[in-house]
Protein backbone atom coordinates (compact mmCIF):
# COMPACT_ATOMS: atom_id res chain seq x y z
CA UNK A 1 0.00 0.00 0.00
CA UNK A 2 1.22 3.51 -0.77
CA UNK A 3 2.46 5.92 1.86
CA UNK A 4 1.91 9.60 2.50
CA UNK A 5 4.86 12.01 2.53
CA UNK A 6 4.95 11.94 6.33
CA UNK A 7 4.83 8.13 6.42
CA UNK A 8 7.70 7.89 3.92
CA UNK A 9 9.97 10.13 5.98
CA UNK A 10 9.08 8.40 9.23
CA UNK A 11 9.62 4.91 7.75
CA UNK A 12 13.09 5.80 6.48
CA UNK A 13 14.11 7.33 9.80
CA UNK A 14 12.86 4.27 11.67
CA UNK A 15 14.81 1.95 9.34
CA UNK A 16 11.59 0.36 8.08
CA UNK A 17 10.33 -0.17 4.54
CA UNK A 18 6.80 0.85 5.49
CA UNK A 19 4.82 2.29 8.39
CA UNK A 20 1.12 2.83 8.93
CA UNK A 21 -0.92 5.25 11.03
CA UNK A 22 -1.06 4.33 14.70
CA UNK A 23 2.23 2.45 14.61
CA UNK A 24 4.76 3.40 17.30
CA UNK A 25 8.26 3.87 15.95
CA UNK A 26 11.69 4.85 17.16
CA UNK A 27 12.98 7.36 14.66
CA UNK A 28 16.44 8.84 14.21
CA UNK A 29 16.50 12.62 14.22
CA UNK A 30 18.52 14.85 11.88
CA UNK A 31 18.25 17.93 14.08
CA UNK A 32 17.10 18.73 17.62
CA UNK A 33 16.19 22.32 18.44
CA UNK A 34 15.65 24.22 21.67
CA UNK A 35 15.33 27.85 22.70
CA UNK A 36 16.43 29.29 26.03
CA UNK A 37 13.10 28.47 27.72
CA UNK A 38 12.69 24.89 26.52
CA UNK A 39 16.45 24.28 26.81
CA UNK A 40 16.57 25.30 30.46
CA UNK A 41 14.05 22.59 31.39
CA UNK A 42 15.58 20.11 28.90
CA UNK A 43 19.11 20.58 30.22
CA UNK A 44 17.90 19.90 33.77
CA UNK A 45 16.15 16.72 32.54
CA UNK A 46 19.27 15.70 30.56
CA UNK A 47 21.42 16.09 33.69
CA UNK A 48 19.05 13.78 35.54
CA UNK A 49 19.32 11.00 32.94
CA UNK A 50 21.77 8.43 34.21
CA UNK A 51 24.34 7.62 31.53
CA UNK A 52 23.73 10.84 29.61
CA UNK A 53 26.89 12.92 29.76
CA UNK A 54 27.38 13.90 26.12
CA UNK A 55 24.75 14.81 23.55
CA UNK A 56 24.36 12.25 20.74
CA UNK A 57 25.90 14.53 18.09
CA UNK A 58 27.05 18.09 18.73
CA UNK A 59 26.57 18.98 15.06
CA UNK A 60 22.89 18.01 15.07
CA UNK A 61 21.64 20.26 17.82
CA UNK A 62 20.59 23.88 17.40
CA UNK A 63 20.19 26.19 20.39
CA UNK A 64 18.69 29.60 19.72
CA UNK A 65 18.11 32.47 22.14
CA UNK A 66 14.91 34.10 21.01
CA UNK A 67 12.07 34.24 23.53
CA UNK A 68 13.28 36.78 26.09
CA UNK A 69 15.97 38.54 24.05
CA UNK A 70 17.75 40.69 24.89
CA UNK A 71 17.20 39.37 28.42
CA UNK A 72 14.26 41.14 30.04
CA UNK A 73 15.42 40.53 33.61
CA UNK A 74 17.95 38.65 35.71
CA UNK A 75 15.92 35.44 35.60
CA UNK A 76 15.75 35.31 31.80
CA UNK A 77 19.45 36.24 31.63
CA UNK A 78 20.09 33.22 33.85
CA UNK A 79 18.27 30.90 31.43
CA UNK A 80 20.16 32.31 28.46
CA UNK A 81 23.46 31.80 30.27
CA UNK A 82 22.48 28.27 31.23
CA UNK A 83 21.95 27.42 27.56
CA UNK A 84 25.12 29.20 26.47
CA UNK A 85 27.18 27.32 29.05
CA UNK A 86 25.62 24.01 27.97
CA UNK A 87 26.43 24.82 24.34
CA UNK A 88 30.06 25.46 25.28
CA UNK A 89 30.32 22.36 27.44
CA UNK A 90 28.83 20.12 24.75
CA UNK A 91 30.58 21.95 21.89
CA UNK A 92 27.23 22.54 20.19
CA UNK A 93 28.00 23.77 16.66
CA UNK A 94 24.79 25.66 16.07
CA UNK A 95 24.39 28.04 18.97
CA UNK A 96 22.85 31.43 18.19
CA UNK A 97 23.27 34.23 20.68
CA UNK A 98 21.27 37.44 20.45
CA UNK A 99 22.64 39.56 17.61
CA UNK A 100 23.69 36.52 15.59
CA UNK A 101 20.42 34.69 15.22
CA UNK A 102 16.84 35.69 15.73
CA UNK A 103 13.68 33.64 15.97
CA UNK A 104 14.61 29.94 15.87
CA UNK A 105 12.24 29.04 13.03
CA UNK A 106 13.45 31.93 10.89
CA UNK A 107 17.11 31.19 11.63
CA UNK A 108 17.28 27.44 11.01
CA UNK A 109 16.19 27.48 7.34
CA UNK A 110 18.33 30.59 6.70
CA UNK A 111 21.37 28.76 8.03
CA UNK A 112 20.79 25.70 5.87
CA UNK A 113 19.93 23.51 8.85
CA UNK A 114 16.67 22.27 7.33
CA UNK A 115 16.45 20.15 4.18
CA UNK A 116 13.81 18.01 2.47
CA UNK A 117 13.22 14.52 3.81
CA UNK A 118 14.79 15.29 7.18
CA UNK A 119 13.29 14.63 10.62
CA UNK A 120 13.47 17.53 13.03
CA UNK A 121 12.15 17.83 16.57
CA UNK A 122 12.15 21.01 18.57
CA UNK A 123 11.26 22.27 22.01
CA UNK A 124 8.76 24.70 20.55
CA UNK A 125 5.32 24.01 19.16
CA UNK A 126 6.04 25.95 15.96
CA UNK A 127 8.80 23.54 14.99
CA UNK A 128 6.22 22.33 12.44
CA UNK A 129 7.37 25.35 10.35
CA UNK A 130 10.06 23.22 8.64
CA UNK A 131 7.40 21.17 6.89
CA UNK A 132 7.58 24.02 4.37
CA UNK A 133 10.78 22.35 3.09
CA UNK A 134 9.38 18.82 2.79
CA UNK A 135 10.76 17.66 6.11
CA UNK A 136 8.91 16.03 9.00
CA UNK A 137 9.12 18.48 11.88
CA UNK A 138 7.22 18.51 15.15
CA UNK A 139 7.22 20.30 18.47
CA UNK A 140 7.76 18.55 21.78
CA UNK A 141 8.20 19.36 25.43
CA UNK A 142 11.53 19.63 27.17
CA UNK A 143 11.81 16.10 28.58
CA UNK A 144 11.28 14.66 25.08
CA UNK A 145 13.93 17.08 23.82
CA UNK A 146 16.32 15.94 26.55
CA UNK A 147 15.70 12.34 25.44
CA UNK A 148 16.52 13.35 21.86
CA UNK A 149 19.69 15.15 23.04
CA UNK A 150 20.79 11.91 24.69
CA UNK A 151 19.63 9.30 22.17
CA UNK A 152 19.41 11.03 18.82
CA UNK A 153 16.07 9.34 18.40
CA UNK A 154 12.48 9.87 19.48
CA UNK A 155 9.44 7.67 19.82
CA UNK A 156 6.56 8.73 17.64
CA UNK A 157 3.11 7.51 16.82
CA UNK A 158 2.74 7.56 13.04
CA UNK A 159 -0.08 10.06 12.37
CA UNK A 160 -2.73 9.62 9.75
CA UNK A 161 -2.70 12.39 7.16
CA UNK A 162 -5.22 14.94 6.01
CA UNK A 163 -4.72 16.03 2.39
CA UNK A 164 -5.54 19.66 1.73
CA UNK A 165 -5.83 20.60 -1.91
CA UNK A 166 -5.80 24.33 -2.71
CA UNK A 167 -6.81 25.53 -6.12
CA UNK A 168 -7.20 28.96 -7.62
CA UNK A 169 -5.33 32.20 -7.76
CA UNK A 170 -4.94 34.53 -4.80
CA UNK A 171 -6.54 37.93 -5.28
CA UNK A 172 -4.92 41.31 -4.73
CA UNK A 173 -3.81 41.76 -1.09
CA UNK A 174 -4.62 38.13 -0.28
CA UNK A 175 -1.70 36.09 1.04
CA UNK A 176 -0.62 32.71 2.39
CA UNK A 177 -1.59 33.92 5.87
CA UNK A 178 -5.18 34.40 4.73
CA UNK A 179 -5.22 30.93 3.19
CA UNK A 180 -3.91 29.41 6.41
CA UNK A 181 -6.32 31.28 8.66
CA UNK A 182 -9.11 29.95 6.44
CA UNK A 183 -7.60 26.48 6.77
CA UNK A 184 -7.49 26.65 10.58
CA UNK A 185 -11.13 27.72 10.54
CA UNK A 186 -12.03 24.87 8.19
CA UNK A 187 -10.25 22.23 10.27
CA UNK A 188 -11.08 23.71 13.69
CA UNK A 189 -8.72 24.30 16.61
CA UNK A 190 -8.40 20.57 17.34
CA UNK A 191 -9.47 19.29 13.92
CA UNK A 192 -6.04 17.92 13.07
CA UNK A 193 -4.92 16.75 16.53
CA UNK A 194 -2.60 13.71 16.26
CA UNK A 195 -2.65 14.13 12.48
CA UNK A 196 -0.37 15.26 9.69
CA UNK A 197 -1.47 17.91 7.24
CA UNK A 198 -0.20 17.48 3.66
CA UNK A 199 -0.54 20.58 1.50
CA UNK A 200 -1.26 20.17 -2.22
CA UNK A 201 -2.62 22.07 -5.19
CA UNK A 202 -1.73 24.75 -7.70
CA UNK A 203 -2.19 27.56 -5.19
CA UNK A 204 0.56 26.28 -2.92
CA UNK A 205 2.75 25.29 -5.89
CA UNK A 206 2.72 28.97 -6.79
CA UNK A 207 3.51 30.17 -3.28
CA UNK A 208 6.95 31.42 -2.37
CA UNK A 209 9.01 29.61 0.25
CA UNK A 210 7.98 32.28 2.76
CA UNK A 211 4.30 31.69 1.99
CA UNK A 212 4.75 27.97 2.58
CA UNK A 213 6.58 28.71 5.83
CA UNK A 214 3.62 30.78 7.02
CA UNK A 215 1.25 27.92 6.25
CA UNK A 216 3.34 25.10 7.73
CA UNK A 217 3.97 27.24 10.82
CA UNK A 218 0.28 27.37 11.72
CA UNK A 219 -0.46 23.64 11.28
CA UNK A 220 -0.25 23.41 15.09
CA UNK A 221 -3.10 25.92 15.33
CA UNK A 222 -5.37 23.11 14.12
CA UNK A 223 -3.65 20.77 16.58
CA UNK A 224 -1.59 18.99 13.89
CA UNK A 225 1.54 17.04 14.67
CA UNK A 226 3.13 18.36 11.48
CA UNK A 227 2.24 20.17 8.28
CA UNK A 228 4.18 19.29 5.16
CA UNK A 229 4.72 20.43 1.58
CA UNK A 230 6.42 18.54 -1.24
CA UNK A 231 9.82 19.98 -2.06
CA UNK A 232 10.02 21.45 -5.55
CA UNK A 233 12.53 23.47 -7.58
CA UNK A 234 11.99 26.52 -5.38
CA UNK A 235 12.71 24.46 -2.27
CA UNK A 236 15.82 22.91 -3.75
CA UNK A 237 17.15 26.26 -4.93
CA UNK A 238 16.63 27.74 -1.44
CA UNK A 239 18.22 24.81 0.39
CA UNK A 240 21.16 24.21 -2.01
CA UNK A 241 22.12 27.85 -1.70
CA UNK A 242 22.61 27.28 2.02
CA UNK A 243 24.02 23.79 2.46
CA UNK A 244 25.89 21.11 0.55
CA UNK A 245 24.62 18.40 2.88
CA UNK A 246 23.04 15.42 1.13
CA UNK A 247 19.32 14.84 1.59
CA UNK A 248 16.56 12.64 0.21
CA UNK A 249 13.57 14.22 -1.50
CA UNK A 250 10.52 12.08 -0.80
CA UNK A 251 7.15 12.09 -2.52
CA UNK A 252 3.81 10.72 -1.37
CA UNK A 253 2.76 7.65 -3.35
CA UNK A 254 -0.09 7.99 -5.81
CA UNK A 255 -2.09 5.43 -3.85
CA UNK A 256 -1.29 6.87 -0.40
CA UNK A 257 -4.15 6.67 2.05
CA UNK A 258 -5.53 9.87 3.58
CA UNK A 259 -7.99 10.12 6.40
CA UNK A 260 -9.68 13.01 4.63
CA UNK A 261 -9.20 15.05 1.49
CA UNK A 262 -10.37 18.65 1.70
CA UNK A 263 -10.51 20.93 -1.32
CA UNK A 264 -10.17 24.65 -0.74
CA UNK A 265 -10.82 27.09 -3.57
CA UNK A 266 -9.04 30.40 -3.04
CA UNK A 267 -10.27 32.34 -6.09
CA UNK A 268 -12.86 34.25 -4.09
CA UNK A 269 -10.94 34.27 -0.80
CA UNK A 270 -10.89 37.63 0.96
CA UNK A 271 -8.29 38.69 3.53
CA UNK A 272 -9.06 36.78 6.73
CA UNK A 273 -8.93 37.76 10.40
CA UNK A 274 -8.88 35.49 13.46
CA UNK A 275 -10.89 37.30 16.12
CA UNK A 276 -10.38 36.90 19.88
CA UNK A 277 -9.72 34.50 21.53
CA UNK A 278 -9.06 31.49 19.32
CA UNK A 279 -7.03 31.06 16.12
CA UNK A 280 -9.99 29.28 14.51
CA UNK A 281 -12.41 32.15 15.18
CA UNK A 282 -11.78 33.32 11.63
CA UNK A 283 -13.91 35.74 9.62
CA UNK A 284 -13.56 37.48 6.28
CA UNK A 285 -12.33 41.08 6.44
CA UNK A 286 -15.57 42.45 4.99
CA UNK A 287 -17.48 40.78 7.80
CA UNK A 288 -15.07 42.03 10.49
CA UNK A 289 -15.03 45.62 9.21
CA UNK A 290 -18.81 45.89 9.36
CA UNK A 291 -18.06 46.97 12.90
CA UNK A 292 -15.61 49.77 13.68
CA UNK A 293 -12.73 48.13 15.57
CA UNK A 294 -10.05 50.65 16.62
CA UNK A 295 -6.75 49.15 17.72
CA UNK A 296 -4.09 50.26 20.21
CA UNK A 297 -1.20 48.25 18.80
CA UNK A 298 -0.13 46.64 15.56
CA UNK A 299 2.50 43.93 15.82
CA UNK A 300 4.54 42.83 12.81
CA UNK A 301 6.84 39.87 13.25
CA UNK A 302 7.05 36.28 14.55
CA UNK A 303 7.97 32.91 13.04
CA UNK A 304 4.74 33.18 11.03
CA UNK A 305 5.28 36.55 9.36
CA UNK A 306 8.63 38.03 10.37
CA UNK A 307 10.36 37.44 7.02
CA UNK A 308 11.81 39.91 4.54
CA UNK A 309 8.91 39.29 2.14
CA UNK A 310 6.49 40.28 4.93
CA UNK A 311 8.41 43.44 5.78
CA UNK A 312 8.43 44.40 2.08
CA UNK A 313 4.64 44.17 2.00
CA UNK A 314 4.35 46.37 5.11
CA UNK A 315 6.90 48.89 3.83
CA UNK A 316 5.13 49.15 0.48
CA UNK A 317 1.92 50.11 2.25
CA UNK A 318 3.52 52.50 4.78
CA UNK A 319 6.04 54.17 2.48
CA UNK A 320 5.78 57.95 2.72
CA UNK A 321 2.85 57.78 5.14
CA UNK A 322 2.36 58.09 8.90
CA UNK A 323 0.64 55.54 11.09
CA UNK A 324 -2.60 56.64 12.78
CA UNK A 325 -2.16 58.75 15.91
CA UNK A 326 -4.30 56.47 18.11
CA UNK A 327 -1.95 53.50 17.98
CA UNK A 328 1.63 52.23 18.07
CA UNK A 329 3.24 49.81 15.64
CA UNK A 330 5.89 47.39 16.84
CA UNK A 331 8.03 45.55 14.31
CA UNK A 332 10.27 42.59 15.16
CA UNK A 333 12.24 41.46 12.11
CA UNK A 334 12.48 37.65 12.30
CA UNK A 335 16.24 37.37 12.33
CA UNK A 336 19.46 39.32 12.18
CA UNK A 337 19.69 38.50 8.46
CA UNK A 338 16.15 39.74 7.86
CA UNK A 339 17.01 42.90 9.82
CA UNK A 340 20.14 43.51 7.75
CA UNK A 341 18.34 42.84 4.48
CA UNK A 342 15.58 45.23 5.53
CA UNK A 343 18.23 47.83 6.38
CA UNK A 344 19.90 47.36 2.99
CA UNK A 345 16.61 47.79 1.17
CA UNK A 346 15.74 50.92 3.14
CA UNK A 347 12.76 49.18 4.72
CA UNK A 348 13.78 49.96 8.29
CA UNK A 349 13.91 53.68 7.47
CA UNK A 350 10.51 53.52 5.81
CA UNK A 351 9.02 51.83 8.86
CA UNK A 352 10.72 54.13 11.37
CA UNK A 353 9.79 57.14 9.27
CA UNK A 354 6.15 56.07 9.35
CA UNK A 355 6.28 56.00 13.14
CA UNK A 356 6.89 52.29 13.78
CA UNK A 357 9.11 51.11 16.64
CA UNK A 358 11.56 48.57 15.23
CA UNK A 359 12.84 46.05 17.76
CA UNK A 360 15.79 43.72 17.71
CA UNK A 361 14.93 40.28 16.22
CA UNK A 362 13.22 37.82 18.55
CA UNK A 363 9.79 36.51 19.56
CA UNK A 364 8.99 39.73 21.42
CA UNK A 365 5.36 40.47 22.08
CA UNK A 366 4.01 37.42 20.21
CA UNK A 367 3.89 35.30 23.36
CA UNK A 368 3.58 38.21 25.79
CA UNK A 369 7.19 37.96 26.84
CA UNK A 370 8.27 41.55 26.53
CA UNK A 371 8.80 44.42 24.07
CA UNK A 372 5.16 45.14 23.38
CA UNK A 373 2.99 43.28 25.88
CA UNK A 374 -0.58 44.55 26.06
CA UNK A 375 -2.29 46.20 29.02
CA UNK A 376 -5.84 45.75 30.32
CA UNK A 377 -8.45 46.67 27.75
CA UNK A 378 -5.97 47.07 24.89
CA UNK A 379 -6.52 45.64 21.43
CA UNK A 380 -3.88 44.52 18.96
CA UNK A 381 -3.92 43.32 15.38
CA UNK A 382 -0.95 41.09 14.79
CA UNK A 383 0.80 39.02 12.14
CA UNK A 384 1.42 36.28 14.72
CA UNK A 385 -0.14 32.85 15.14
CA UNK A 386 -2.08 32.77 18.43
CA UNK A 387 -4.66 34.97 20.11
CA UNK A 388 -5.59 33.03 23.24
CA UNK A 389 -6.61 34.93 26.35
CA UNK A 390 -3.50 36.59 27.78
CA UNK A 391 -1.30 35.49 24.88
CA UNK A 392 0.20 38.96 24.38
CA UNK A 393 0.06 40.18 27.96
CA UNK A 394 -3.02 41.12 29.93
CA UNK A 395 -5.84 38.55 30.01
CA UNK A 396 -8.09 41.57 29.54
CA UNK A 397 -6.51 42.44 26.18
CA UNK A 398 -7.66 41.31 22.72
CA UNK A 399 -5.57 40.01 19.83
CA UNK A 400 -6.70 39.76 16.21
CA UNK A 401 -4.57 37.76 13.76
CA UNK A 402 -4.13 38.80 10.15
CA UNK A 403 -1.68 39.13 7.26
CA UNK A 404 1.08 41.76 7.18
CA UNK A 405 -0.95 43.68 4.56
CA UNK A 406 -4.09 43.77 6.70
CA UNK A 407 -2.02 44.80 9.73
CA UNK A 408 -0.27 47.57 7.77
CA UNK A 409 -3.55 48.88 6.38
CA UNK A 410 -4.97 48.87 9.91
CA UNK A 411 -1.92 50.78 11.14
CA UNK A 412 -2.67 53.61 8.68
CA UNK A 413 -6.37 53.77 9.45
CA UNK A 414 -6.13 53.21 13.21
CA UNK A 415 -8.75 50.47 13.02
CA UNK A 416 -9.07 47.02 11.47
CA UNK A 417 -9.04 47.75 7.76
CA UNK A 418 -9.37 45.86 4.50
CA UNK A 419 -6.02 46.27 2.72
CA UNK A 420 -7.87 46.14 -0.62
CA UNK A 421 -9.46 49.49 0.27
CA UNK A 422 -6.10 51.24 -0.01
CA UNK A 423 -5.58 53.41 -3.04
CA UNK A 424 -2.22 51.85 -3.73
CA UNK A 425 -3.81 48.55 -4.78
CA UNK A 426 -4.00 49.92 -8.27
CA UNK A 427 -0.30 50.80 -8.33
Amino acid sequence: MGMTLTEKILARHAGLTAVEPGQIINAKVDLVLANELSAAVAIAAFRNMKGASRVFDHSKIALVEDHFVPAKDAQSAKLAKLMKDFAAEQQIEHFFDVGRGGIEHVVLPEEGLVAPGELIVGGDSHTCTYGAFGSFATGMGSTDIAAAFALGEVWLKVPCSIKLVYNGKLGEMVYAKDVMLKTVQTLGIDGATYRAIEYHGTTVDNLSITGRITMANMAIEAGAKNGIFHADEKTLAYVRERTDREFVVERADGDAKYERVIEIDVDALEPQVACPHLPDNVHSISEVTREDIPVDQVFIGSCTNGYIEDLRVVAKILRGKRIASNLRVIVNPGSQKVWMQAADEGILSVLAGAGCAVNTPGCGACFGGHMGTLGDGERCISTTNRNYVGRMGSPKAEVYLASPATCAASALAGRITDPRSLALVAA
Partner: protein
Amino acid sequence: MVAKTLRGHAHKYGKNVDTDVIIPGKYCSIVDPAELGTHAMEGIDPEFSKKVERGDLIVADRNFGCGSSREVAPIALKGAGVSGVIAASFARIFYRNALNIGLPIFESSEAADDIATGDEIQVEPDSGTIRNISKDKEYKAAAFPPFMQSLIDAGGLQAYVEKRLAEKA
Protein backbone atom coordinates in the same frame (compact mmCIF):
# COMPACT_ATOMS: atom_id res chain seq x y z
CA MET B 1 3.86 -0.20 39.69
CA VAL B 2 0.80 0.72 41.72
CA ALA B 3 -0.07 4.37 41.39
CA LYS B 4 -1.48 6.08 44.42
CA THR B 5 -5.13 7.06 44.62
CA LEU B 6 -5.85 10.70 43.79
CA ARG B 7 -8.41 12.56 45.84
CA GLY B 8 -9.54 16.16 45.90
CA HIS B 9 -12.08 18.67 44.73
CA ALA B 10 -12.78 19.46 41.11
CA HIS B 11 -12.08 22.78 39.39
CA LYS B 12 -14.07 22.79 36.19
CA TYR B 13 -13.22 24.60 32.94
CA GLY B 14 -14.46 24.62 29.35
CA LYS B 15 -12.91 23.49 26.09
CA ASN B 16 -9.59 24.59 24.53
CA VAL B 17 -7.87 25.51 27.81
CA ASP B 18 -4.58 26.54 26.22
CA THR B 19 -1.12 26.70 27.69
CA ASP B 20 -1.15 30.51 27.59
CA VAL B 21 -3.84 30.55 30.25
CA ILE B 22 -2.39 27.58 32.18
CA ILE B 23 0.87 29.51 32.56
CA PRO B 24 1.13 32.88 30.78
CA GLY B 25 4.25 33.48 28.67
CA LYS B 26 5.66 36.14 30.95
CA TYR B 27 6.20 33.52 33.68
CA CYS B 28 7.97 31.04 31.41
CA SER B 29 11.39 32.04 32.66
CA ILE B 30 10.50 30.68 36.10
CA VAL B 31 11.82 27.18 36.75
CA ASP B 32 10.77 26.49 40.34
CA PRO B 33 7.57 24.34 40.28
CA ALA B 34 6.12 25.89 43.45
CA GLU B 35 6.66 29.43 42.15
CA LEU B 36 5.18 28.48 38.77
CA GLY B 37 2.26 27.04 40.71
CA THR B 38 1.42 30.43 42.19
CA HIS B 39 0.58 31.58 38.63
CA ALA B 40 -1.18 28.41 37.42
CA MET B 41 -4.41 29.02 35.48
CA GLU B 42 -3.95 32.75 36.02
CA GLY B 43 -5.13 33.52 32.50
CA ILE B 44 -8.68 32.25 33.07
CA ASP B 45 -8.93 31.99 36.81
CA PRO B 46 -6.74 34.55 38.62
CA GLU B 47 -7.80 33.21 42.03
CA PHE B 48 -6.92 29.60 41.21
CA SER B 49 -3.68 29.39 43.16
CA LYS B 50 -5.48 30.71 46.27
CA LYS B 51 -8.43 28.33 45.91
CA VAL B 52 -6.61 25.14 44.99
CA GLU B 53 -5.82 22.63 47.69
CA ARG B 54 -3.24 19.87 47.46
CA GLY B 55 -4.78 16.88 45.70
CA ASP B 56 -7.43 18.83 43.79
CA LEU B 57 -8.15 17.90 40.19
CA ILE B 58 -8.77 19.97 37.10
CA VAL B 59 -11.70 18.87 34.98
CA ALA B 60 -12.13 20.29 31.48
CA ASP B 61 -13.81 19.80 28.15
CA ARG B 62 -11.94 18.84 24.98
CA ASN B 63 -8.50 19.90 23.70
CA PHE B 64 -7.00 20.66 27.12
CA GLY B 65 -3.47 22.08 26.88
CA CYS B 66 -3.55 23.25 23.27
CA GLY B 67 -1.02 25.79 21.99
CA SER B 68 2.57 26.10 23.09
CA SER B 69 4.89 23.17 23.87
CA ARG B 70 5.92 24.72 27.20
CA GLU B 71 6.54 21.92 29.66
CA VAL B 72 6.14 24.44 32.46
CA ALA B 73 2.37 24.19 31.87
CA PRO B 74 1.95 20.74 33.47
CA ILE B 75 4.80 21.58 35.88
CA ALA B 76 2.86 24.67 37.07
CA LEU B 77 -0.28 22.58 37.68
CA LYS B 78 1.72 20.03 39.61
CA GLY B 79 3.47 22.84 41.49
CA ALA B 80 0.09 24.28 42.48
CA GLY B 81 -0.81 20.95 44.07
CA VAL B 82 -3.07 19.61 41.31
CA SER B 83 -3.01 15.82 41.51
CA GLY B 84 -4.41 15.14 38.06
CA VAL B 85 -6.36 16.43 35.06
CA ILE B 86 -9.53 14.88 33.67
CA ALA B 87 -10.57 16.12 30.22
CA ALA B 88 -12.71 15.08 27.27
CA SER B 89 -9.50 15.15 25.23
CA PHE B 90 -5.96 16.53 25.37
CA ALA B 91 -3.78 18.38 22.89
CA ARG B 92 -0.91 16.21 21.68
CA ILE B 93 2.14 17.97 23.14
CA PHE B 94 0.51 18.57 26.53
CA TYR B 95 -0.40 14.88 26.68
CA ARG B 96 3.24 13.81 26.24
CA ASN B 97 4.53 16.51 28.59
CA ALA B 98 2.12 15.61 31.39
CA LEU B 99 3.11 11.97 31.28
CA ASN B 100 6.81 12.86 31.04
CA ILE B 101 6.75 15.02 34.16
CA GLY B 102 4.44 12.71 36.11
CA LEU B 103 1.16 14.64 36.11
CA PRO B 104 -1.58 11.99 35.82
CA ILE B 105 -4.13 12.69 33.06
CA PHE B 106 -7.40 10.94 32.27
CA GLU B 107 -9.54 11.11 29.18
CA SER B 108 -13.29 10.81 29.79
CA SER B 109 -16.01 12.87 28.08
CA GLU B 110 -18.57 11.53 30.52
CA ALA B 111 -16.62 12.65 33.58
CA ALA B 112 -15.77 15.97 31.90
CA ASP B 113 -19.47 16.59 31.25
CA ASP B 114 -20.83 15.46 34.57
CA ILE B 115 -18.38 16.71 37.18
CA ALA B 116 -19.01 20.19 38.57
CA THR B 117 -16.67 22.56 40.38
CA GLY B 118 -16.45 21.58 44.03
CA ASP B 119 -17.38 17.90 43.51
CA GLU B 120 -15.19 15.58 45.52
CA ILE B 121 -13.36 13.24 43.16
CA GLN B 122 -11.35 10.09 43.69
CA VAL B 123 -9.32 8.47 40.92
CA GLU B 124 -7.62 5.09 40.80
CA PRO B 125 -4.96 5.72 38.14
CA ASP B 126 -4.23 2.04 37.49
CA SER B 127 -7.79 1.10 36.61
CA GLY B 128 -8.79 4.53 35.30
CA THR B 129 -11.79 4.55 37.61
CA ILE B 130 -13.03 8.05 38.41
CA ARG B 131 -15.45 8.31 41.36
CA ASN B 132 -17.57 11.38 41.94
CA ILE B 133 -18.14 11.09 45.68
CA SER B 134 -20.40 14.16 45.81
CA LYS B 135 -22.75 12.77 43.16
CA ASP B 136 -22.16 9.09 43.96
CA LYS B 137 -21.30 8.30 40.36
CA GLU B 138 -18.51 6.48 38.60
CA TYR B 139 -16.84 7.05 35.22
CA LYS B 140 -14.19 5.15 33.35
CA ALA B 141 -11.20 6.88 31.77
CA ALA B 142 -9.98 5.68 28.38
CA ALA B 143 -7.09 3.24 28.74
CA PHE B 144 -3.67 4.51 27.67
CA PRO B 145 -2.45 3.08 24.37
CA PRO B 146 -0.28 -0.01 25.09
CA PHE B 147 3.01 1.76 24.31
CA MET B 148 2.17 4.66 26.63
CA GLN B 149 1.18 2.23 29.34
CA SER B 150 4.47 0.34 28.99
CA LEU B 151 6.34 3.65 29.19
CA ILE B 152 4.43 4.57 32.36
CA ASP B 153 5.02 1.10 33.82
CA ALA B 154 8.73 1.36 33.07
CA GLY B 155 8.92 4.49 35.20
CA GLY B 156 8.47 7.14 32.52
CA LEU B 157 10.60 8.56 29.73
CA GLN B 158 13.65 9.16 31.90
CA ALA B 159 13.89 5.50 32.88
CA TYR B 160 13.26 4.54 29.24
CA VAL B 161 16.13 6.75 28.05
CA GLU B 162 18.45 5.36 30.72
CA LYS B 163 17.64 1.83 29.56
CA ARG B 164 18.28 2.73 25.90
CA LEU B 165 21.60 4.39 26.83
CA ALA B 166 22.65 1.31 28.79
CA GLU B 167 21.80 -0.88 25.77
CA LYS B 168 23.88 1.34 23.50
CA ALA B 169 26.87 1.50 25.86
